[in-house]
């Protein structure tokens, strides 16, 4: 059954652990689930789902763990928005795990295609951001002129 006929019921859950300091590392977990009318679920995860650059850095370098799992065995190809070539194409199984290194200054979108039907079955974006520490300054207390 083509995944393009799936109903768009999305369940998102995630957690984010930010490691502040000089290591531009974000450990995170995010799952994105699609559910079709036969209650089949495909679970697409990027770990981490955010990459944080230090103040001096212009690109973010990380190794991602990309995981796609489904109730029924599937052959898939995973693409990133940085290339027209697939990151990987796997044989038929229920769980697919890929380690992938990135070096980018912009967000990267990862897309999972069903190899048999060549249809998009999952998509997730890795957010690339600049580390911006919370800073505080002395409040000057000038007030509103006459008041």
């Amino acid at each position, binding site marked *: 059954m083509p995944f393009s006929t799936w109903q768009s019921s999305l369940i998102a859950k995630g957690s984010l652990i930010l490691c502040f300091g000089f290591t531009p590392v974000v450990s995170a977990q995010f799952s994105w689930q699609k559910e079709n009318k036969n209650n089949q679920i495909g679970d697409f995860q990027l770990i981490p789902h955010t990459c944080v650059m230090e103040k001096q850095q212009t690109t973010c370098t990380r190794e991602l763990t990309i995981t796609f799992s489904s109730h029924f065995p599937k052959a898939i190809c995973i693409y990133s928005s940085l290339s027209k070539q697939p990151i990987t194409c796997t044989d038929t199984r229920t769980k697919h795990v890929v380690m992938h290194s990135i070096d980018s200054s912009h967000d990267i979108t990862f897309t999972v295609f069903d190899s048999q039907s060549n249809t998009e079955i999952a998509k997730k974006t890795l957010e690339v951001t600049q580390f911006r520490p919370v800073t505080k300054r*002395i409040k*000057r207390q*000038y*007030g509103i*002129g006459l*008041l």
Partner: protein
Amino acid sequence: MIMGKMTVVFAAVTMLAFAVQTKAEAEYITTQDWNFSLSFGYGELQNPIGNTDNVTLYALPNVQFYNDRFFIDNTTVGYSLFENNHLYFDIIGQLNDDGLYFNFEDFGVLSAIGLDAARGIDLPNIERDISYLGGVGLGYLWHDTLISMTWLNDITNTHHGDELTVKVGRQHNFGETQIGLNLSATRKSHDLLRYYYQIEQSESVIFAGTYVPESAGINYQIHFTIDQPIGRGWFLTGALKRTFLSNQISDSIIIERHHIDNYFAGVKYAF
């Protein structure tokens, strides 16, 4: 009425004087965030000039933005040449208060935010321009108390005068209630006072006689604020400022007060 206001101020001074030291979060502001709030309620700005009505306030905006160096604090803008957790040195620009008294009815920004600038009697021939001042500010945060000094000179070629202000201010959290208190003294130069408060015979249609300030003068101010959160983004808010005018101002034949009381009370929404 005035005694009541002063009672509140003295109570605040006492509370702050005996306040237990807590972390000085109230003395700092987060950078890169616009802090904008709008208050609705009732207030009054007294105009020290005779034969004028006080100005009624129904709304009061408050805007602050600080980035790494630059800041906007309502009518004050500045650029910090140096700052650490306790000390800062700024270049600043600030609106002069004196010119506002002569131009309430023309000051569109105030009218737009709800100021009722109706005068009892118009002031024929007494025209003074609003001036903007530029200079430097130095501040030191000592045990949650901000001690600051600003020196500002006329940069609008209006009166060629200057102001020197020394201020001691403190903001303190009592539970969720934030109370602020500022005490200040401002020396206004002879040139500034002559421009605004010297009266020539040709201007004395209503006010008989002439007046020439003899020297520079010092105004003293006490400023009290309170914010009590009542809901998500909403606060009960109040502000009271009393300005004791220098003799060089209050002796002017157009001035009918020795001090000015400005206040506002209402609810505030912080965006």
